[in-house]
């Protein structure tokens, strides 16, 4: 089932909330209910993957209890490799084999991708590593663990929260409805749906304009930069809209999920950007990969090579962050690019350059991040080279006139509002949650209603595919 659909927002969600708060009284029965609702939600999107989800969840629970950490890690990674990376790896390997004219064909699996696999596998891996490190004890509450694993507000695209945080909350669900959390839920839902349906969907329509098709893309910086800016705005509004919705749903069921965004496009450095973009994934990689890898490299190479160790860890971590997004060389390149940006950032901080943290750094970071989206959205070498050539000015400056000539008049307001919201520094629902005024609450209610009128057909989020 899709979060942005009439069937979910008008039927599934209200029915679940009424049952959850009105008819189910004890925290334990509420937990059972959340598990059932999550499995129903998941099965309506693809019932064939329910056994995989439950098997991985139960196996992780069982192996963690017996401190069999590495078998658990391997099992989860195996699922990820089989469903997400096998065909990518095999295709590349086959290309190498073909270069040597060896008559051998490797098998492709061509499997459908299970919804949310990358997200719940990462939750499982985080849990296993936490147990290994002794951060907390393995849970003996199977119901809580499985519910944590399949909790429907976050199963499609995160946030990737730790068991210590979300699992503990699920194990101690509130006994009564909290109006404060209820209001937070409505506010987050309103902002999330508005970002997605009113802004991101319209940017997607603009991105579908003929001028942005590779064969019609005019020469010059102007339109190429408009393209990457719009792609960057779209991705942010789409994903942060989803995150606000997921957080809102969590609040409505009495669970506080961790934030995933904090106005990333106003960041003053690449490091700050990654502290504000897809926060839960960044934290996961920082805790479970970057820090141990840095420590390991320093141990191996010695404290004198601490800087090199950090640079290496940055590149490795960001390459894997890129690979996490999908089995494509372009995602890998995007990750490497950000690894390089982080290293430049680390170098500048180490040299104590005055520019770090200034508005110049802020603008440079924004431009660098936007440039990076040209890797992320690239569909092939030819497309990339055309856009890259224009982005760096090899095609001259060009003109905005072609863009504005094709842009329908009613999209001007959308573009202005998009820019204002993104750069306000208050673009996240959490930024608005501190305002506790009745008129503000009334406007939130209206904001929640308006985008729903645009929900004719179910709509999906970009990050669900990752």
């Amino acid at each position, binding site marked *: 089932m899709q979060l942005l659909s*009439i*069937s979910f927002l*008008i039927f599934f969600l209200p029915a679940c909330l009424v049952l959850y708060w009105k008819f189910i009284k004890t925290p334990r029965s509420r937990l059972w209910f959340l598990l059932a609702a999550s499995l129903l939600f998941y099965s309506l999107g693809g019932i064939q993957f329910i056994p995989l989800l439950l098997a991985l969840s139960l196996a992780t629970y069982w192996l963690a209890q017996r401190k069999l950490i590495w078998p658990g890690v391997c099992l989860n990674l195996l699922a990820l490799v089989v469903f997400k990376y096998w065909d990518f790896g095999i295709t590349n390997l086959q290309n190498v084999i073909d270069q040597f004219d060896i008559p051998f064909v490797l098998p492709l699996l061509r499997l459908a991708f299970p919804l949310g696999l990358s997200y719940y596998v990462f939750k499982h891996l985080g849990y296993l590593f936490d147990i290994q490190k002794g951060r907390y004890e393995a849970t003996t509450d199977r119901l809580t663990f499985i519910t944590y694993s399949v909790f429907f507000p976050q199963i499609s695209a995160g946030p990737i929260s730790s068991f210590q945080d979300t699992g503990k909350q699920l194990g101690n669900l509130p006994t009564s409805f909290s*109006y*404060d959390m*209820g*209001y937070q839920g*409505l*506010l987050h839902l*309103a*902002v999330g749906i*508005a*970002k997605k349906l*009113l*802004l991101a969907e*319209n940017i997607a329509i603009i991105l579908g304009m003929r001028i942005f098709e590779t064969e019609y893309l005019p020469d010059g910086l102007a339109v190429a930069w408009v393209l990457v800016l719009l792609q960057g705005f779209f991705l942010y509004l789409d994903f942060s809209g989803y995150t606000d919705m997921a957080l809102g749903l969590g609040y409505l069921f009495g669970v506080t999920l*961790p*934030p995933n965004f*904090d*106005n990333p496009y106003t960041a003053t450095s690449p490091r700050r950007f990654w502290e504000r973009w897809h*926060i839960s994934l960044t934290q996961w990689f920082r805790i479970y990969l970057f820090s141990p890898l840095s420590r390991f490299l320093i141990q191996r190479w010695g404290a004198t090579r601490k800087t090199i160790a950090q640079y290496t860890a940055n590149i490795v971590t960001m390459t894997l962050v890129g690979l996490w997004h999908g089995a494509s060389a372009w995602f890998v390149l995007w990750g490497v690019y950000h690894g390089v940006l982080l290293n430049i950032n680390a170098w500048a901080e180490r040299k104590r350059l005055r520019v770090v943290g200034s*508005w110049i750094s802020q603008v440079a970071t924004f431009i660098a991040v936007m440039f990076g989206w040209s890797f992320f959205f690239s569909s092939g070498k030819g497309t990339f080279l055309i856009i890259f050539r224009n982005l760096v000015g090899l095609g001259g400056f060009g003109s905005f006139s072609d863009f504005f000539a094709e842009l329908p008049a*009613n999209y*001007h*307001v*959308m573009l*202005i*509002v998009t820019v*204002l*919201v993104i*750069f*306000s*520094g*208050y*673009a*996240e629902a*959490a*930024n*608005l949650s*501190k*305002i*506790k*005024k*009745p008129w*503000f*609450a*009334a*406007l*939130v*209610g*209206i*904001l*929640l*209603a*308006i985008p*729903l*009128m*645009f*929900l*004719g057909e179910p709509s999906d989020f970009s990050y669900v595919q990752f």
Partner: protein
Amino acid sequence: MIRKSNSKLSINQLLLIITSASGYLFSIWRTGSLLLQDLTRSNAEEFSSIIVSFIENCGALLLCSLVFAAFFLEKIKKRGVLKKDRSVKTKDDRLFKLSLGFFIVILASSVVSIVVVNPRGLYGFSLFPQLYDNIRQEKVGYYLDLTETPEVIIIGTSRTLSLSPDYIEETLGYSAFNFGISGPQLDDSLLVAKFVFDHSDLQRPEVIIFEVEGLHRINPKRTAQVSPLQFVAYMEAEMKVLAVVSRIQEIFNVHQLSEALYVLQAVQGDEALSTYWDVTPNGFTAFKPPFTLEEDIARLEETGRPKTSCKNKSESEDYIREIVDLAEKHDIAIVFYISPMHPYFFQKYFEKDSNYVQCFNDVYEFFVSLEKEHENVFFINLKNIESIDGITDETGFYDRQHLTPKNANLLIDAMAESIHQAYQKAVEEED
């Protein structure tokens, strides 16, 4: 995690605020100017587009306003302008109830407007004139108004619309009703047939004239979306769900809301809504094709050749068999016929599209064998225009496939013998 803003405004920030305020005010002006146009002079499409843009912009501006409000309230609070919060601390339950209340009121107003005005005729009643004629709904209404069930009922696509029940009565002596509808698929026609069979309790029809295409076309999703509510009872379970879900989705369609507003303003201004179909109580419909013959020819020339495929062959044959079985059960004879095509297109399709020829031959063979298997089934292939005297006159076609009333009468003449035979068969079965 959320960044704290600075308590003092720098010149840079001030410049940013001025720029933002200009952009915000410009957006408000652009949005407001949408409504300053003379909407009463707009046609339905223009009106709808303006209202949709207005609502969309209002939503976006509301989000922007909340963001700005949060920004300034926090700045003011930090600068100490509001020394003391004089208001009584607002209770959380009040905020929640206010949000939920406004949400419900706005959404409910939109839903009620759509359902009550029903501009697309999707909800089974019409308190207001419909913006888009729902030909299915109109024909169902006329059929239910009949005091006696007619002896001959015509079912099929828009190609049947110009077949005149009056002409059938004049020349063949049978009372008739034209239940042909625009753009149906085979599953659509099956629903019409089931509806007719189910409503023939007082006096059943003797003959159904059933127009079939030279191709198999099925589209349960579209059929579920456009069928009148009276047809839902005759749908398969999956299609029933689709029918209900699509209507519910349409309740949240801002385009339908804007159409409802258009109807309301037109009604208030005593403005007549333009009608697309001109349906008479016996089902005869003055047809207005979307393209002229010349435009149709130009489109074919542009695309090179028709693109056809024989999808859903076995499913459509199952549908036909189901109709035949139902007719047999009710002692009704069926005359299946394939409608003629304009000579130019007939030639192009049969010369240039081997797929079409293959599909057509399959369909032809199926109906020939069906006619042999069932005594109540009659089949006439009128695709080949040479089979009807005088129909080759090119002025007898509105476009590539829709006949003018003159040619429609020739078609009835060509089917007369089969209709008589079918009638006799049905009467014999009844006896």
